[in-house]
């Protein structure tokens, strides 16, 4: 194995530290754990979109070969309570319902867990699950959010006044007056189709009990929250639960906790008195939604392109309610508007609506993506109306003074949006494309360029929930000088483990090879909150820095004593001072084996620290607005597309993203995150859509019908970095990982509209799949 590069400081790009295990197939993902006596679970799911469970006949299943246990909702409810919410809607003034691991008397979507079978093999469990007979009194169902808001619509939860979880209004100023006074007003409706995260590793859990102690291996990005959640739903002390989430095969929000199967698998293991594993199949993974919204907006502008007012009405379809964080994403779709544009007269009305579809789970972008898609479409429509260049309209509206309080109350820490625009236009050769466009059109080729600006609030803290804006890390040096870092943040694949090791090695002044990192184990790691909201390097990196500085200070004190001088330093694993040198392991050994000889230095080479970044403010202002984000990454995207007007196929010819996430700890890993997010945005812009049949069953339930981008669909995504450090985060870093989804959607949508300008097409949603593009062309034709 090749050694890691020597230079490992902040700003360099050492390779992923777990690379060797992953490259050789030795890494153990959830499904690779196979303890002795393991049994396998299969979930029996509702086949109706809405109905009362009249009877469940489990006799044939229970008698099937290899079956250890068949569990129904009624039986499960005797042993497990409701699954507690990640973010309780009631705490946000919304409607709630009890979320059970198995439904007891009613189902509200196709695929909802109704029963479970445990057997000696997965095949036997599946065969027996097919024998469970469930009789329903079928109820009318509703699959469209607007229809679900009607007074006479079928009600998912009968004790609610309707199907709306919450109606919220955000903004400031007087947008109606601003629109009335505007030189131009453009309006539009945008539909964002339901897509999904689709990590290549499906979700899964393995539970085993040792007496009254529970161990759960989970494909999950939030181990400590999962421990708390199981403690509540199962009524077991947290101290008796261990969650291990070592290797996770991609997550993108899906594997945040709150799923019924977490409680279910732990309960099945308890009742079967054996280790039980459940891994979902791809059809189950694809049920999870990521986003589905309709926006109706009006934007006012002056004749010189200054946007003066925005009114937007959002109807967000979250499917059935979930205890997972996903239901809350549309709030961010609202509050992230009007993005990084200086517009203070804004009103965003949001209805979060339940329908008889599976729940939307948390997804990369967390709703912010929709805000960017809509704002960037609105800006392009203003430009079109005024006959101005879209780039120029953006420039006329950028926020330039920081910190900047937006109309919805967010406090943008820093940025240089003009710089992003300049760099992007230059890199993509915007002027050259515009010149070539006319010529291409004469030859019957439809080439377009589109821009997408994105302001990505990151590292959130939602008061009173498990969305926490701080985290905790322990740095411990052993008597041999080796360093163990235990941190509360987790890495479902992005590589923050490497970034944190870099920081600790740099702070301590030791080689990165001496640093071992432990994540995703509630028995070993300090209290923490895992991975979400681009937080891991901000708060995981920040807390690791504080802890490493404590340990370094102790090493320096010992070295000063040994060298009898106060002028000491540590670098490259060597302590020096007074003309003498000593390897750091010798310094550690001196403290930990000769503690009394060394004198009054406390003999501990370990520190646990938490880091809270600045800029978060939970005290509501006079408009009731809070400020839950410390840092705001920003990016500007340019997509160049060619549209085949005969087939409707959109081909990406070029793509540029200028990205500003402040200081980069490991630029190669930042680029990896950005390219991944952009590609997810490109998929939702062009090909991905979860389609439901009229009966509420999922039609696009495999990768043949749910079309993820493949290698040949993605051009070289050209990355340009701009560094505007955050004044509120320790290293000046902002979150990286979510920026790209909304920017890519917007840039592609704007590029397609630009390409098809000769037809007078107006894009009204994503995905811009070939049939949808052809429909746009057809309806624009006279």
């Amino acid at each position: 194995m090749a050694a890691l590069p020597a230079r490992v400081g902040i700003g360099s790009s050492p390779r992923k530290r777990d690379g060797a295990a992953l490259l050789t197939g030795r890494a153990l993902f959830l499904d690779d754990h196979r303890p002795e006596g393991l049994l396998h679970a299969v979930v029996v799911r509702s086949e109706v979109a809405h109905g009362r469970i009249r009877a469940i006949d489990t006799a044939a299943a229970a008698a099937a070969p290899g079956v250890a246990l068949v569990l129904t909702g009624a039986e499960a409810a005797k042993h497990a309570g409701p699954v507690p919410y990640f973010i309780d809607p009631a705490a946000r003034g919304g409607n709630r319902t009890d979320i059970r691991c198995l439904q007891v008397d009613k189902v509200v979507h196709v695929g909802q867990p109704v029963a479970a079978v445990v057997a000696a093999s997965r095949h036997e469990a599946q065969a027996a699950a097919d024998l469970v007979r469930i009789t329903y009194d079928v109820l009318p169902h509703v699959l469209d959010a607007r229809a679900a808001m009607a007074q006479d619509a079928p009600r998912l939860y009968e004790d609610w006044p309707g199907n709306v979880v919450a109606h919220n209004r955000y903004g400031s100023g007087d947008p109606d007056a601003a629109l009335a006074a505007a030189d131009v007003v453009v309006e539009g409706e945008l539909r964002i189709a339901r897509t999904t995260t689709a990590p290549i590793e499906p979700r899964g859990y393995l539970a085993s009990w040792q007496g009254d102690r529970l161990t759960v291996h989970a494909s999950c990005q939030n181990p400590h929250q999962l421990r708390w959640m199981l403690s509540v739903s199962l009524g077991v002390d947290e101290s008796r639960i261990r969650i291990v989430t070592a290797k996770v095969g991609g997550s993108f929000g899906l594997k945040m906790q709150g799923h019924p199967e977490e409680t279910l698998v732990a309960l099945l293991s308890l009742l079967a008195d054996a280790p039980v594993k459940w891994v979902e199949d791809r059809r189950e993974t694809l049920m999870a939604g990521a986003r589905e919204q309709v926006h109706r907006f009006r934007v006012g502008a002056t004749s010189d392109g200054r946007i003066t007012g925005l009114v937007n009405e959002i109807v967000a379809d979250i499917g059935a309610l979930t205890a997972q964080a996903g239901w809350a994403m549309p709030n961010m779709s609202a509050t992230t508007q009007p993005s990084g544009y200086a517009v203070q007269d804004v009103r965003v009305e949001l209805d979060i609506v339940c329908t008889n579809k599976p729940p939307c789970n948390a997804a990369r972008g967390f709703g912010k993506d929709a805000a960017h898609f809509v704002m960037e479409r609105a800006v392009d429509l203003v430009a079109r109306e005024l006959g101005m260049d879209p780039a120029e309209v953006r420039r006329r509206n950028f926020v330039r003074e920081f910190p900047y309080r937006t109309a919805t109350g967010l406090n943008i820490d820093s940025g240089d949006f003009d710089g992003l625009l300049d760099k992007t236009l230059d890199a993509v050769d915007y002027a050259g494309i515009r010149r070539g466009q006319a010529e291409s059109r004469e030859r019957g080729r439809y080439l377009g360029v589109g821009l997408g600006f994105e302001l990505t609030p990151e590292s959130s803290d939602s008061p009173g929930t498990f969305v926490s804006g701080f985290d905790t890390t322990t740095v411990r040096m052993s008597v041999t000088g080796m360093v163990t870092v235990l941190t509360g943040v987790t890495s479902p694949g992005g590589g923050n483990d490497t970034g944190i090791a870099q920081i600790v090695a740099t702070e301590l002044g030791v080689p990165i090879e001496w640093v071992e990192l432990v994540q995703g184990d509630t028995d070993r790691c300090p209290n923490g909150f895992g991975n979400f909201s681009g937080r891991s390097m901000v708060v995981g990196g920040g807390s690791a820095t504080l802890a490493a500085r404590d340990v370094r200070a102790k090493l320096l004190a010992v070295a000063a004593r040994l060298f009898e001088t106060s002028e000491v330093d540590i670098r490259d694993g060597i302590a020096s001072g007074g003309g003498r040198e000593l390897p750091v392991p010798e310094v550690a050994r001196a403290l930990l084996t000769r503690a009394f000889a060394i004198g009054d230095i406390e003999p501990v080479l370990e520190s646990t620290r938490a880091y809270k970044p600045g800029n978060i403010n939970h005290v509501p202002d006079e408009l009731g607005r809070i400020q839950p984000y410390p840092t705001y990454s920003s990016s500007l995207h340019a997509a160049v597309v060619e549209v085949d007007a005969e087939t409707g196929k959109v081909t990406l010819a070029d793509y540029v993203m200028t990205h500003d996430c402040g200081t980069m700890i490991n630029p190669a890993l930042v680029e990896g995150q950005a390219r991944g997010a952009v590609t997810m945005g490109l998929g939702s812009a062009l090909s991905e859509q979860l389609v439901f049949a009229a009966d509420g069953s999922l039609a696009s339930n495999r990768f043949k019908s749910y079309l993820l981008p493949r290698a040949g669909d993605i051009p070289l995504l050209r990355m340009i970095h701009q560094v505007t450090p955050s004044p509120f985060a320790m290293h000046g870093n902002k979150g990286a990982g979510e920026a790209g989804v909304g920017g890519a959607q917007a840039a592609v949508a704007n590029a397609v509209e630009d390409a098809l300008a000769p037809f007078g097409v107006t894009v009204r949603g994503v995905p811009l799949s070939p049939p949808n593009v052809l429909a746009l062309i057809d309806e624009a034709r006279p």
Partner: protein
Amino acid sequence: MKLTVNGVEHEIDVDPRTLLVHAIREQVGLTGTHVGCLTGDCGACTVVVDGQTTKSCSVLALSAEGSAVETIESLADGDDLHPVQQAFWDEFGFQCGFCLPGMLLTAKELVESTPDPTDDDILRAIDGNLCRCTGYNTIVAAVRKAARS
């Protein structure tokens, strides 16, 4: 049946319906071959059967009797990574690593059969392997590098 994986013959007891991927993972016990979809679409389960990459979720275990099956576990020589593995590490050609075994075996087949592949050759070769983390750019760079080394 007898299943030869990475040069070792295993005597295993399989149901006629058992898929090759399940036999490799559950009977032989080599878990580097991953299951992502079971419909032949994602390529995480890619192995090499008699020199050709094969999606092991789409063939029955019994059909591999008498064949030589190679999995990701055979690629490195002890601690020495195969040039394709090294290139993926150097170029950040993976993030979570779940699609990686299939991607590596697909890449190895290409560089062994096509000494100087064009980018189009590379894209065509890996088009059957889904990755949700990287956006593919670094994978293409890794395959290019592997082909040159």
